[in-house]
């Protein structure tokens, strides 16, 4: 069974996610924070998933996660612009610009070379940030509290606002990705994966399709990075380190390619597993995490979403 091409009913799942986000609002604050960061990171994993539909694996998606985070951080901490109405568009725009430039180069590459080149680019940014002593090098820097369209919530209400913001933007991101997947450019991604040459014969340029998906993923990831930065109040170069990017790929694969909400939910499950593994076995949490991942790959080769998809058919 191939992953679904039919996203007509996926709105339903976005609605389910919306419901879960609202339920999450009433959970204990540590859990809510976990959901919040998982949603922000899940948006990046969604970007990876979109590229995967074209058979491309970005091992450097942390690049845009980091660009989004640093765009927000630099504006808020260094330029004094602290309103989300400017910060998030700036994060998306910064990611888009870099994505368009790099996309020109990267759309020529496929398979493992795409993976390796995206990785190389993200590691070059890592190297640059580590050298940037004025940005705190590896320590990164902190981001002041933000305002919401001119409104400054007091300290106690801040977590509520940032949670709500994250929820709204992530849901919008999912809907945007869905609209993209249902468009011609999105639907043809599968054709890029299946057979590029036939696609060219039909008069479509696979390179343009890859360029577009790369840019769309960049914007989603930049937004994710911006939200993550606002949530955690801190950015550092670790955001563009290869292990971070590897995690996005992991989540995208664990989730499967069947729904736009799958990466977001899978990210949450991964974080939940990690935090409880840390709590139960602080000395062996990586072992638990690794075993769980292996189990999913062996037992559910089409990702966690195949459980949902199976239940539907």
């Amino acid at each position, binding site marked *: 069974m191939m992953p679904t091409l039919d996203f007509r009913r996926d709105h339903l799942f976005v609605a389910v996610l919306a419901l879960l986000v609202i339920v999450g609002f009433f959970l204990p604050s540590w859990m809510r924070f976990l959901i919040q960061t998982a949603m922000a990171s899940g948006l990046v994993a969604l970007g990876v998933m979109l590229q*995967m539909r074209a058979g491309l*694996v970005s091992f450097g998606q942390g690049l845009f996660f980091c660009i989004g985070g640093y765009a927000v951080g630099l504006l808020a901490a260094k330029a004094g612009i602290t309103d989300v109405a400017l910060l998030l568009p700036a994060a998306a725009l910064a990611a888009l610009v870099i994505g368009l430039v790099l996309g020109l*180069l990267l759309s*020529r*590459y496929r*398979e*493992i*070379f795409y*993976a*390796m*080149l995206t*990785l*190389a*680019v993200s*590691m*070059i940014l890592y*190297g*640059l940030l*580590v*050298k940037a002593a004025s940005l705190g090098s590896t320590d990164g820097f902190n981001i002041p509290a933000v305002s919401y369209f001119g409104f400054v919530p007091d300290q106690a209400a801040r977590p509520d606002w940032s949670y709500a913001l994250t929820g709204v933007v992530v849901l919008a991101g999912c809907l945007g990705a869905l609209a993209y997947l249902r468009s011609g450019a999105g639907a043809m991604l599968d054709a890029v994966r299946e*057979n*590029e*040459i*036939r696609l060219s014969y039909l008069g479509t340029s696979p390179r343009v399709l890859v360029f577009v998906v790369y840019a769309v993923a960049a914007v989603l990831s930049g937004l994710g990075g911006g939200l993550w930065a606002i949530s955690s109040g801190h950015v550092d170069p670790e955001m563009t380190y*290869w*292990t971070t990017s*590897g995690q996005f*790929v*992991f989540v995208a*694969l664990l989730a499967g390619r069947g729904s736009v909400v799958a990466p977001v939910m899978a990210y949450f499950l991964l974080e939940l597993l990690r935090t409880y593994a840390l709590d139960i076995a602080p*000395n*062996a*949490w*990586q*072992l638990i*995490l*690794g*075993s769980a*991942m*292996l189990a999913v*790959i*062996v037992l559910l*080769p089409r990702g966690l979403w195949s459980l949902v998809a199976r239940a539907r058919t």
Partner: protein
Amino acid sequence: MKLVAILLDGLNYSAWLFLVAVGLTLIYGVMRILNIAHGAFYAIGAYVCASALGLYYSAGLPEAGAFLMMGLSALVAGFVVGLLIERVVLRKLYGQDEVIMVLVTYALFLILSDAVKLTWGVESYYVFQPYAYFGYIEFGNLPYQVYDLLVVGLAIVAGIGLWYWLNRTRTGILMTAVVADREVAAAMGVNVTRIFALTFAIGTVLAAVAGAATAPKIAVTPGIGVEVIILAFAVVVIGGLGSIPGAVVGAIFAGYARAICVHVAPQFELFAIYAVMAVVLAIRPHGLFARAEGRKI
């Protein structure tokens, strides 16, 4: 003087990079698995070597024999771990997507890292005796450890040995047949499963040898495997994934890039390797030594 230093340092670092990367490229070339767990195998090699030599020295045996012990420990550790993992995990997953296999090895890497930690603890292990054993020779006023030069020799031996084995022995030629076309090779009666197991074990041994050869120069400590993976990847990608000559050239490119940076512009040391990688890929998208592949129709 600076030139001599650059030549020696570059050579030394290239040799080490080659040792670290060659197993990775072998496994990818034959099995199409980009093995992230390679770093863990390197660490296991270093730990086993450190433990074995610790026992060896405390038994008061002659110091020269320690080198035999190093080789032996790496061989045994690599083979046992490699065969075990191939048998228990990978064999069930052959035929999966390349990317899925990357993730499988990433999961293995996490598991093995913790397994190493639970076995050896977080305290460092040391086996510095072999590093000082041969003393140093001076090039002008630059003292250089003989051990480091021996590592260069080891890399050359490993490279030539691997070439000989792949091109001049029956198993090696069968392996090349599997690389060329897995299905046809199987149809002709080649036992692909066995070839895969052997390849994986040899790749693991090479990683373990690299770890064992490095152990005397470092504190064997958690996390040593992480740094290695990304370096090995860079080397292999520069040279062309799956190509042994590519690994040689990739190692030399990366090794000299770093040596030149250290002596001329230490500020840029951190990017040297990635910059080389990005430039090479921009010019030759599949690496320097990759075979051209037909496009699928």
